[in-house]
Every structure is written in structure tokens, then in C-alpha cells.
């Protein structure tokens, strides 16, 4: 069977571990990386389908599959998938985001054949019937309640994306709007499965203690006969340039204001993305970070500050998340953020400051590759989102090459008030009209 594979690429992903990409004639990708330090394997199947591939009115579809894919197949009765995995001591899980969905199996090395059989079975033969779909719909609505409706950070996050994007599918939440989750129809669910769950839309990533030749034979025997599907044209929706600050305020049962500030940022493959990653670290990614020191330590105006750059294919956001301290409010925090960003433009970081952020990035890079699951996630993400697993090291190289001048330039370019969206959660007014509770108020900013 080995001859049916086409070997495409190879790269080192750390000490003593080499990853190789192979492809079958039907388009299925396989990334193999042998790591014999423990008798286990990480077997992940990445599909190039996420919430961005949904349509208005049917949001949450990609995430619903994260649940349905553990259900009945033609060969497996309900519940059997989990029982087979758990009997080995292994674990199964899945994750959905804007650009991808992946299914994760962590298995004892001897049970790799079981994992490949299970994954190929559910790629081809998932049974989608009314009763199990309705049961999972209830579970997903409860998941949404737990993570969004009853979670202030979850609801802020959802509102930030909804306000920051007006055209691009990043504007709806991966879990979907509640009314859409409730309305997804069985025919649409079946059509989504037939469209996206196909070998030419998937990459299998296997990291751990196995024989590569045996893995190639195994995967070829289970997937070689699976016909590719006709993939829809990738939606290419450009988000219009943001030219005005957007602000939304939400009343919540909380003690102090919380705010999320999202600055429009490039996609992960843009060279400036790595520079902004360094900027995020310099602002709030370590105890000596500028914004953290200013807000938490010097002014004592915030109890927490975080900065994150989302690793999306298309332009997304650099997000600052702040919880204000007692006696302070979101407007004061915004003034402090503006002042710190202005200072970053006026007094660009020294070479030493940038080297500090790069050292932190180096530690983070290695931390992500410590175990087989982490290695598989990194390989799967870069292969699926950016088209090449070798970008694991490309991004690391870009981070290592960032200069103080780069930092000054991207701060001037991206961290501008007119390019940002602000979502603020504020303590509810106990005297407010109860009918008005939960309504957001919009403001046009500068």
C-alpha cells in the first residue's frame, strides 16, 4: 500500500522529532511524527471547515458536528465510540473554531489501529437521525448557556466579534446563535456532513510511538477507497476597513467593569502578525509588560489585563481584556490604554525590551511542543489554517527576527482608535427597569 502515498514535505519540529506529510490519491493528507518517549499516540483528524463556512441563519452547524461525530455510525451503535476509546484508557475530544474543526484521540500506542478505524468510520458512515440530533441540540444549548449566557467573559467575547465584523463570517460565534442552534434542520445537517467530511478536506496528524510504514498501510487500507467530495468554492469575504471606533455597553451582574478592546489585525500568515504577537507580549504578556505594569501595579486601576492575538486565517483582532479594580471604571481604563499606546509610539521599545518578548515567545514555542498532543495540535493548525505544517517553525523564525523598529511601525499602523471595537460589561443598576436588562447600548466613538 505504501506506493499509493505521495510524500510531500518533511521538517524537524523540535529535538529529535521529524514530521512528514504524505497524501493519498483521494486528497487525504497525513502528517506523521514519531516520538517514542511514551507508549502513546496522538491521532487527530483536522477538517478544513469551521464557523466561517456556515451561512447566516444556520450558525453553529460546524460546532454541532463536534458533538454529532461521537454518535451512531453504520458500524457502531450509539455510545460505542466512546466506550471503545475509554476501554483502552484513551480519551477523545474535539474542537471547532472559525477556520477548522478537529477530532482528537489520545490512545495507548497499541490501540492506534482502533483509532484509525473509528476515525475512518465516522468520516464516511455517520448516522444522522432525528432523536440523537435533538439530544445533542439540547446539550449544545446548555453548553451555550454555560459558556455565553451565564458567563460574562463569554458574552463579551461574542459581542466583540459581532460588533467588530460587519461582513465577514467571523462576526458570528463558533457555537452559533441560540435561535440558529434551535432551528438547524436535519436535511441541512446531513448536507453539511456530505459537503465537508471528505478525505480531500481532511488531514490526519499522528504523533507518538508507532511505526510509520505500518501507519501508512493502516490509513491507506481504511481511507484509500473513500471517494473525494466536490468542495464548494471557498467563501472569500473581505471585511470592509473599519474607519470609526465602535463601543457597546452591556449591563451584567458583576462587581466592576470589564472590557474587551479589539484592534483590527492581519491574518496569521501576514509577516506583521508575528510583530503584533511581540506587541501583545510587550503590552500585557508578562509581569513586566507595559500595560500590565501601568494598570495593575502603578495605577491599581485594574485587577487583570491580558492581550491576545487571534491566530485566524483572515484578518482578525488583537484583543485587550481588562477587569477594572474597585473604584475605577472602563472609561478611565480606555484613557490609560490610549496613553500607553501613545507612549509606545513616542518611545518605541528598546532592543532589550524586544529581546525580552522574544525570549518569552521562545519559551512559549517549546512549551507548546512538550507532549504529543501539543505537537499534533501545532502541526494540524498550521497545516489546516495556513496550508503548511512547516509554518510552525516559520512563525517562530519570524518572531525571532522582530526588531524594535518593526514594533514601532505596527503599533502606529494597527493600534489606532478608529480601527478598534470596545465592548464593556458594567454592573447592573439595581434600580433600572427590569425590562431593559440585558440590552446593549451602542455608541459611535471617535
Amino acid at each position, binding site marked *: 500500500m505504501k506506493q499509493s502515498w505521495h510524500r510531500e514535505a518533511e521538517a524537524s519540529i523540535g529535538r529529535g522529532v521529524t514530521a512528514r506529510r504524505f497524501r493519498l490519491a483521494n486528497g487525504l493528507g497525513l502528517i506523521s511524527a514519531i516520538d517514542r518517549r511514551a507508549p*502513546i499516540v496522538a491521532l487527530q483528524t483536522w477538517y478544513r471547515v469551521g464557523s466561517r463556512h456556515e451561512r447566516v441563519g444556520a450558525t453553529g452547524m460546524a460546532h454541532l458536528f463536534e458533538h454529532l461525530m461521537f454518535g451512531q455510525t453504520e458500524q457502531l451503535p450509539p455510545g460505542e465510540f466512546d466506550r471503545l476509546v475509554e476501554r483502552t484508557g*484513551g480519551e477523545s475530544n474535539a474542537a471547532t473554531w472559525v477556520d477548522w474543526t478537529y477530532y482528537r484521540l489520545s490512545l495507548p500506542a497499541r490501540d492506534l489501529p482502533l483509532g484509525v478505524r473509528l476515525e475512518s468510520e465516522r468520516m464516511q458512515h455517520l448516522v444522522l437521525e432525528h432523536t440523537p440530533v435533538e439530544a445533542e441540540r439540547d*446539550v449544545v444549548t446548555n453548553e451555550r*448557556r454555560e459558556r455565553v449566557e451565564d458567563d*460574562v467573559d463569554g458574552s463579551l467575547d461574542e459581542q466583540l466579534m459581532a460588533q467588530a465584523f460587519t461582513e465577514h463570517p467571523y462576526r458570528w460565534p463558533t457555537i452559533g446563535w441560540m435561535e440558529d442552534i434551535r432551528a438547524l434542520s436535519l436535511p441541512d445537517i446531513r448536507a453539511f456532513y456530505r459537503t465537508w467530511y471528505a478525505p480531500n478536506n481532511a488531514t490526519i496528524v499522528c504523533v507518538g510511538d508507532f511505526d510509520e510504514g505500518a501507519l501508512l498501510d493502516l490509513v491507506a487500507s481504511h481511507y484509500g477507497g473513500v471517494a473525494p467530495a466536490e468542495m464548494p468554492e471557498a467563501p472569500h469575504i473581505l471585511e470592509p476597513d473599519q474607519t470609526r471606533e465602535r463601543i457597546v455597553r452591556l449591563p451584567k451582574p*458583576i462587581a466592576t467593569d470589564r472590557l474587551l478592546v479589539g484592534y483590527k489585525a492581519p491574518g496569521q500568515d501576514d509577516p506583521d502578525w508575528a510583530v503584533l504577537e511581540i506587541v501583545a507580549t510587550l503590552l500585557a504578556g508578562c509581569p513586566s509588560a507595559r500595560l500590565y505594569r501601568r494598570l495593575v501595579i502603578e495605577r491599581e486601576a485594574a485587577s487583570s489585563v491580558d492581550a491576545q492575538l487571534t491566530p485566524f486565517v483572515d484578518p482578525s483582532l488583537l484583543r485587550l481584556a481588562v477587569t477594572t*479594580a474597585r473604584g475605577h471604571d472602563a472609561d478611565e481604563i480606555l484613557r490609560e490604554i490610549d496613553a500607553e499606546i501613545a507612549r509606545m509610539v513616542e518611545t518605541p521599545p528598546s532592543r532589550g525590551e524586544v529581546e*525580552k518578548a522574544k525570549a518569552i515567545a521562545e519559551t512559549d514555542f*517549546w512549551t507548546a511542543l512538550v507532549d504529543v498532543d501539543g505537537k499534533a495540535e501545532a502541526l494540524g493548525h498550521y497545516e489546516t489554517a495556513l496550508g503548511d505544517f512547516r509554518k510552525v517553525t516559520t512563525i517562530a523564525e519570524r518572531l525571532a527576527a522582530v526588531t524594535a523598529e518593526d514594533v514601532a511601525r505596527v503599533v502606529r499602523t494597527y493600534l489606532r482608535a478608529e480601527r478598534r471595537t470596545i465592548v464593556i460589561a458594567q454592573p447592573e443598576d439595581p434600580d433600572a427597569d427590569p425590562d431593559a436588562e440585558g440590552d446593549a447600548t451602542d455608541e459611535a466613538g471617535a
Partner: protein
Amino acid sequence: MNPVIIVEPSPDTPLVWFDIAIRGGASADPRGIEGLHRHAGLLARRGAGRRDRAELDETLDAFGAALDVAVSRDAVTLSGLALSRHLDAVIEVAAEILAEPRFDEAEHERLLRETPQVLDEIRDDDSALATRWFDWLCCPGHAYGRTSLGTEASLAKIERAAAIDLWKRELVPGNLVIGLAGDVDEAGAAKLAARLVERLPMTARPEVALTIPNSTARARRVTLVDKPDRTQAQIRIGHLSSRYGDADTPALAIAEAVLGGMFSSRLMQEIRVKRGWSYGAGCALRRSRLPHWFEIWMAAGIDVAGPAVQLTLELLADYSAHGPTDDEVDFARSYLVGAMPFHVATSRQRMQLAVRDAVFELPPGYTAKLPEALASLTSSDVRAACKRCLAPEAAVTVAVTTAEQAQRALEAAGAGALTVVDHDEY
């Protein structure tokens, strides 16, 4: 007396992790001054030797390193992460924190202002709030029922001198468990561990006497933590159970897995799969040095909070009385034995498990060897442990939800007398 030293070398990455556990922890806080261990640990991290807080942060960040303080019921732990080429320098900083913390007055005052805001953040988070109330109410008087974070009242009583005294008393080599893992060899690790303790006083390890009341004679009771606008109820149900490491631990590991430790478990199947009432449902015996809680958790829709509590209590009562079936025991044993390689796959995991075992005063390798103990267990052993260690008649229930919608159903759930408290009441 020397510290316990654990080394797990591995050249997989150019990283080294180290944990320095100071035995004692929040359960040893003086009564009425809850939060003192946390306060002392965090304060020590905010300046040591010649470096004030800002200089210390700058030094560590420049190495790409991290040094964080975590406080559990049983230990205050200083955890480090460093690129191996900077390990020497980072260990030196850690040694200064252990031996020469500055306990700056200004940082002491700042930390006293910061901590109540962490209380606010817990209040804003339904899951954390449910856990905090459950800890308080599960077994009144138990050392683990006292908050490691402190309360507004206890924080007001913390004095800088008390933090300094605590550090002097507890920072002695014999009270430490030091673990190193990663890109460091045995000999190098031994030298680094020696440097960490060389400036500490060689005084005796402090004795801590903790009381554990027996709460199993108490009746069921339920507390509704009233919070507006909830769509769900964050639910905790449980009671005081046995100590991790006692004779029942292997049997209870199987019992826990069958009831709520796997996706195939009874709770997950009954609550999530059959009824769709909650995204997740599970249970665990909390692992600690002293007997701790057996705890069930879920987040049920507000409209089904009462039925979810009622069903869970029925499941618990049935399980306590009859235990798992033979097939369930075999399945859970297979799962637990097969899962162990995942818990010891990396050097860091192996080190942290060994440090935890030492803090719990268990024999070396206790947790890693649990699969051997599971092999010899019979179904009867597991069923007997369920009868001994599960106490559905004394189950404490906490639900963070909106009383207006959920109170009547919770009163009818068979969970015992219901008390309503406001979510601000803490």
C-alpha cells in the same frame, strides 16, 4: 533535615520546570486570618534580595522565564519554568525568594487592596462561586472548608509581620519538596536543589495539627445562592469522604470512574446523553493530604435544576447501596490502567505527580503505581468501598442560580432543607 528532592530528566525540549512545595498550605492559616499563606507566598514573589518587584519581574522576563506562586490547602508552591541556558540564573532568583524575601511594606499594602478584587472575580463566575460555597458548607469546621483566598474580614487582619513570621517558620529545608524536570541531568539537578536551600535555616519542620469533624451524621441540606438573570444552575453535591492514599483509594478510583469519571459514566449518560440537561456532569474524590470531599458537579438548565438534583441524589443513593456491576468494574479498571501512561508521559507530569504524593505524605511512586493496586481488586471490594465512603443521606447541595425560577423545584428535589443566600453575601 533535608528536603525531599525529585528529579525527572528529559532532553525533549530546552526547558526546565521546577516546583518548590512548602508544606503547610492554606489549611494551616490561623483561624480568623484565612488567606495568610497565600498572602505570604505572593508577597515573597514581589521582591527578594537586592531586587524589588519591578526588578525581579524584569529579570525573569528577560530570560523568558516564569516564577509563579500557587496556594493549595496543603502547600504553597513556587513553580518555575526556564530555558535551560538560563536555568542557573533563574534558580538563583528562586533561591533569593526563598531565603531573602523583602516583604516590602508597599507591596504588602497593595496586595491587601488587590485580593478583595479576586473575591469579586469569583463572585462574578458562577462555577467558581458554586465551588466556594460548597467548600464552606460541605463540612463546617473542616480545615479544607476555610478559604485559601481569605474573606474581606480575614484579609483586614493580615499583618506584614505575620507573613514574615510564617515564612521564617515554614521555610526550612525539611519542610520543602523540590522537583525538577526537563533538560537537566541528575547531578546538575541535585546541585541546583542544594543551592535553593543552602541559605535557609536548619530549624525543625513546623508541626501543624488540623481537625476534621465527622459530618456524616448530618442530614441533607441545600443552599441556593441567588444570582439574577441566570439561565442555568451551577450545581455541586457531595460530602466529606476519605483521604486520598488510604486503603479505600484504589477501590474509590474505580467507583469514581463508573459514577462520573468518564464519558461513559452513569452521571454523564443519565444527565447529558439521555436527558440533555447539562453540557457536563461528573464526580471526583478531591485529592488532598487529609480526608476531603466527594463532589458531583453539573450546570443544568434552570428549568431542570430541581429534577437534575433529585435524579443525581437518587443515583448516588442507589450507587452507595449497590455499587457498580461487575462489567462496570472491569471497564473502569481497563480505563484507569490504560490511562496511566498519559499521566506520566512527560517529565514534568512525572515530577508533579511525585511532588504531590510527597506533599500528601504518601510513599514514593504511590500514584504511578495505582494501576498495580487496581489489578487485584474485586467487584466486591469496590461495592464495599461505595458503602463505606459514599454518604447520600448527608449530601450537601449548592446551586448558584436565580431563586425566583428555581427555588420551588429545588425545595421539592429531596435535597433537604433549603436556605437562600444572596450571591453578594460573602
